[in-house]
């Protein structure tokens, strides 16, 4: 066998140009697959990282009506839904895997918010003391909320950097007054997602994902929320969990608990609480990009098929060329199996080599695309292994016909031709 492989390499080396041309189909096919797979994987990992952050394992549990998130911007206070009490918050914290719980009110459209003559069209939140740390926000300038802000119902707000751009034209907002629902609030700080959790927007998908926060956000202490908006608004919940593995289960448990405790008649209400972990969203996005790329992989597969036929063609030529050699080998006692194996090995070595070259050029191409188009790539070891094994398999499959032909050659006929 080792001898066969050595001979195969010798044969390939002595027909360099022919071998390369023969391998071309395989090389292109494998290179295309590796490039596509690397790009998919890179994009997926980025989506995942953007959404769930590096360790920012947050599950949001929101009030839903008929399956859609209930948004107070457009609706009144829902009937039959209680405000979450401190007691329930404690229960949420006791769910296994839960590290921290934050309750907050929100409007996806902050109606009647002005700075001077500019109306703010972003989101507004009424947050508790845990909110910033649950989501991984950091105070970039100014200060965060203190306990006394909450106790003394101070009309203070935090803004994020997008709001700084959109509402304050990029100037420092600290100490500025913002009118919210007729009340005057003072900006005390600017917050931003800490570096490691910050989403990067590199693709259209990312853009849509973050588009709803693109006008910026304003945060006020939950204590003053009723002053600006309404009393008795049921809160949403953000839960920080220990790790991504428990996100789904902890989120589900929290949602079930809230549905049972907060909804007055849970069995007959169209309200319920649903968890929405980012991991799940990430997976949805990933499967979407995967399915489009699967089609590309099929096309690459056709190139492999064509490559295989090319290999078969060249092997048939090679058998004809080496008729005398095969005849002599059979005359001096080589059995069919040996001849068969020799040619199969040659085909397999040829295509494997093509596969390996394909993998290398695929990786190179992926890096190039990544550098040129800012698409992230990640090399998938499994894909590489499968590619090489698959290309070997192509050699065996398409080498079978030529090899059988060689093995069945009549030694008399073969020796006569010289």
């Amino acid at each position, binding site marked *: 066998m080792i001898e066969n492989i050595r001979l195969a390499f010798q044969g390939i080396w002595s027909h360099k140009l022919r071998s390369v041309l023969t391998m071309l189909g395989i090389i292109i096919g494998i290179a295309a697959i590796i490039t596509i797979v690397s790009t998919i994987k890179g994009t997926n990992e980025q989506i995942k990282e953007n959404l769930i952050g590096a360790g920012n394992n947050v599950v949001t549990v929101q009030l839903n009506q008929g399956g859609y998130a209930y948004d107070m911007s457009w609706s009144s206070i829902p009937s039959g839904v209680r405000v979450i009490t401190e007691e329930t918050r404690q229960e949420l914290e006791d769910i296994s895997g839960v590290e921290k719980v934050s309750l907050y009110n929100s409007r996806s459209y902050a109606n009647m918010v002005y700075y001077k003559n500019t109306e703010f069209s972003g989101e507004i939140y009424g947050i508790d003391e845990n909110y910033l740390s649950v989501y991984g926000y950091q105070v970039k300038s100014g200060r965060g909320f203190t306990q006394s802000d909450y106790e003394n119902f101070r009309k203070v707000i935090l803004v994020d950097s997008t709001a700084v751009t959109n509402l304050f034209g990029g100037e420092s907002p600290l100490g500025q007054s913002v009118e919210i629902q007729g009340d005057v609030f003072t900006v005390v700080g600017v917050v931003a997602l800490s570096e490691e959790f910050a989403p990067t927007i590199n693709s259209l998908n990312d853009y849509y994902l973050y588009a709803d926060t693109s006008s910026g956000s304003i945060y006020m202490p939950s204590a003053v929320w009723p002053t600006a908006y309404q009393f008795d608004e049921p809160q949403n919940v953000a839960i920080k969990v220990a790790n991504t593995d428990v996100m789904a289960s902890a989120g589900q448990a929290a949602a079930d608990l809230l549905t049972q405790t907060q909804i007055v008649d849970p069995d007959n209400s169209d309200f319920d609480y649903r968890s929405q972990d980012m991991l799940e969203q990430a997976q949805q996005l990933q499967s979407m990009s995967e399915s489009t790329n699967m089609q590309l992989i099929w096309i690459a597969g056709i190139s492999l098929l064509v490559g295989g036929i090319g290999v078969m063609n060249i092997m048939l030529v090679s058998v004809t060329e080496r008729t005398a050699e095969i*005849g002599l080998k059979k005359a001096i*006692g080589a059995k069919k199996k*040996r001849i068969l194996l020799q040619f199969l090995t040659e085909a397999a070595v040829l295509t494997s080599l093509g596969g390996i070259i394909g993998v290398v050029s695929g990786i190179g191409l992926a890096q190039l695309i990544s550098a040129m188009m800012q698409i992230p790539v990640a090399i998938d070891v499994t894909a590489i292994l499968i590619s090489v094994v698959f290309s070997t398999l192509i050699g065996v499959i398409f080498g079978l016909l030529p090899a059988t032909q060689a093995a069945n050659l009549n*030694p008399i006929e073969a*020796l006569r031709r010289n």
Partner: protein
Amino acid sequence: MAILKLTDICKDYQQGKEPVRVLKNINLTVERGEYLAIMGPSGSGKTTLMNLVGCLDVPTSGTYELDGKNLKDLNDDAMAEIRNKHIGFVFQHFHLMPKMDALDNVALPLLYAGVPLAERRERAAEALKSVGLEDRMNFLPNQLSGGQCQRVAIARAMVGKPDLLLADEPTGALDTKSGNQIMEIFRQLSNEGMTIIMITHEQSIAECADKIYHILDGELRTGDEEPEKGGGDSEEA
């Protein structure tokens, strides 16, 4: 006991629609250690006979015994094994592997016999030495003269210690001097007890053998009998 016994061997080839009988009732017994030559004009069936004797082909009818064993209904692999173990071939055009050196060419039959590498090398070197090529072991065929190539081929035929050496016009592609060298090797092998069947066109070469057979139109006669159709075409190719 006879090493080779052919009884009523016939061989037909399909030519167009009708079968053409190329060999007609061949009866031939060869004793161990015999050295015989077969002569005949071109197309008379010499190679066809050689292929049958060498287990490269099967007769249409008749029986073929090698070393007392009736070789009948053997499959391809069994025939390959018999060729490998019992028969050594020397061809007119040498048929050496162009990319293997002399040593590897000679060792090739041993590879198919399953002999381990070290022993293969050793025995091949020995065989090359016996044909006087110990200083050409690592030469490629295209670096050797025709006569040297044929000696490599003889070493290859002999390396497996066969019962029978078959040579189809071994001097056909060689000049007289090289041809004579080959004949000397054959004579020596014969003296050592090897059974040799040699096909040739040339009377002078045939005379090196102990016994001459003539084949004409697929019929075999011993040298003592006169061919039916007298004539020069048995001398000329």
